[in-house]
């Protein structure tokens, strides 16, 4: 992790400005602000229920914020904006679906278009290149539903990237993957961010797998966010302010552990907020 690499050095791709969301009276996001620069790898970290998915949906234009605004490449987000690639959470690919990995990536180029597809050499080439970039040549002709979790994740990333967006959003791509596949996906995404100049915003409830590749972090807790480099954000006083109670940040052999303080554990029994019910260790390395 290069702490010296400051935010704002790269041209701005995404600006989230005071975004708030309330759903049926419940405050999900409370005035969240941060920016993502071109080619930067940003981790969106927070416990379950912190509002990560909602925030990604606001950026995609699938969820209207109750306050604040989002700008992608300086323009307000519109539904037809093709500059964002997206890998949603828990995509269930049916094994009975007659679709090869190659076909799913091809849908990333023109899946939104009407009419029947005509053969195009350029598109096939773009699909082949993208499958190669995510190291998926081996299973390009297999049914997507029969691939392993890690292989499916690669295909979904290729699908999201084949239209050459400048921003790639991934919602919990590591959920359900074993540690090795997770690490492979992360280093692949780090490489793609560098080589293809794509800004990556990836949500996860666990920060440690991302530490080697992250340029910056957006930490979300109880609907509030803190952003900056990991050195700026992953600190006891910053995170305590977010959570609204005292937490400690421990460094163990280069890994980070966020632990609720003893007083917070007592509070938890009284208030039983959603972030607290998971137990004192909010993140385990």
């Amino acid at each position, binding site marked *: 992790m290069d702490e010296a690499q400051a935010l704002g050095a790269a041209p701005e791709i995404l600006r989230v400005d005071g975004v708030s969301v309330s759903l049926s009276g419940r405050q999900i996001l409370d005035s969240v602000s941060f920016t993502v620069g071109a080619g930067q790898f940003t981790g969106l970290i927070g416990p379950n229920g912190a509002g990560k998915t909602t925030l990604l949906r606001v950026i995609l234009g699938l969820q209207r914020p109750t306050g604040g605004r989002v700008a992608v490449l300086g323009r307000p987000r519109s539904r037809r904006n*093709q500059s964002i690639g997206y890998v949603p959470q828990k*995509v269930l*690919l049916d094994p*009975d679906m*007659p679709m090869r990995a190659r*076909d799913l990536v091809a849908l990333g180029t023109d*899946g939104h278009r009407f*009419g029947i*597809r005509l053969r195009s050499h350029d598109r096939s080439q773009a699909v082949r290149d993208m499958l190669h970039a995510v190291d998926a040549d081996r299973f390009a002709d297999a049914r997507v539903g029969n691939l392993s979790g890690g292989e499916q994740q690669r295909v979904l990333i290729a699908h999201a990237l084949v239209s050459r967006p400048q921003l790639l959003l991934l919602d919990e791509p590591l959920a359900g993957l074993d540690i090795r596949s997770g690490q492979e996906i992360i280093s692949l995404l780090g490489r793609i961010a560098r080589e293809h100049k794509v800004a990556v915003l990836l949500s996860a409830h666990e920060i440690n797998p991302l530490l080697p590749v992250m340029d910056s972090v957006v930490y979300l807790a109880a609907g509030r966010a803190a952003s900056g480099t990991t050195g700026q954000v992953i600190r006891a006083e910053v995170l305590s302010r977010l959570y609204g109670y005292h937490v400690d940040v421990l460094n163990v052999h280069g890994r980070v552990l966020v632990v609720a303080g003893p007083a917070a554990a007592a509070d938890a029994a009284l208030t039983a907020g959603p972030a607290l019910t998971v137990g004192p260790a909010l993140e385990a390395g």
Partner: protein
Amino acid sequence: MHQLYTWVFEPGFFASAQVQVAATIGGVVAVVSTVVGVFTVMRGQSFAGHALGDVSTAGGSGALLIGLSPLAGFVGLGVIGAGVMEMIGVRRLRGRDLATGIVLGAAIGLSALFLYLDTTAGASTGATQQILFGSIFTIASGTVPIVVILSLVPLVSIAVICRPLLLATVSTDMAAARGVPLRLAGLLYMLALAVSVGLSSLAIGAILSTALLIGPAAAALRLTRRVGRAVAVACVIGVGATWLGVLLAYDSYYWGPGHQGLPVSFFIVAVVFAAYLLSGLPDARTAARHRRPVTPMTTSPADDRVAA
């Protein structure tokens, strides 16, 4: 050789006007049903397809009652039913299932009433058989152009929305993020489904329409890894089953001593069912090759107790 030929094609098969109309309408209907069916199976909406069959039953029997052609009722009420289902069950999978069930129940209730009135008050004594199980040999040749024109509605709809529909089948979130108009795609698909079910109600009966919709598509999905090919394979199975069914029904007239022909719908559905069973063979063979020897189970004391 000639004997074999006449054994397969009983005398007068190709010359029969009824056979020609039946083969034409059956072929067109099979193409439409299977093309729509591939998407229906992939989207997991077989239940909606079946429910629309029941709506068609109500439509067809109601049309007979007021002196309209059953086809108008099949398609007309089917399209309305599809619209209602799409309106009630907006996007939520559970909502969609409930909406389907509610519309289905109402449709069967209406069918019970209409068919009762058809057979008692009306003059159409064969209404129940005709509506539920089809009457492909009694269709007037004047119906052919109407069927062909109607068949364009689902075919064109599917051609227009096939890519957004596929993307939405993989993940509605991914489709929505790409700016796919999900409501429009969903509505056009339901329109295609309703018209296709209405058409196959005419050919093989409202109740059996599901068989032609689902069977060939399900068999095709087992046999290929690509959607385009699945559509082609499903068409071949669907059209083949329909024509073979027509042939067998025609021949069945000569089988028994009483010269009593058997219903076409039975033969079509039987061939579709056989095709589905056969489509599982390649998979079953691979599975058998890869099957590992089963380790003998150790009996636990608990099992002994149960046995005693």
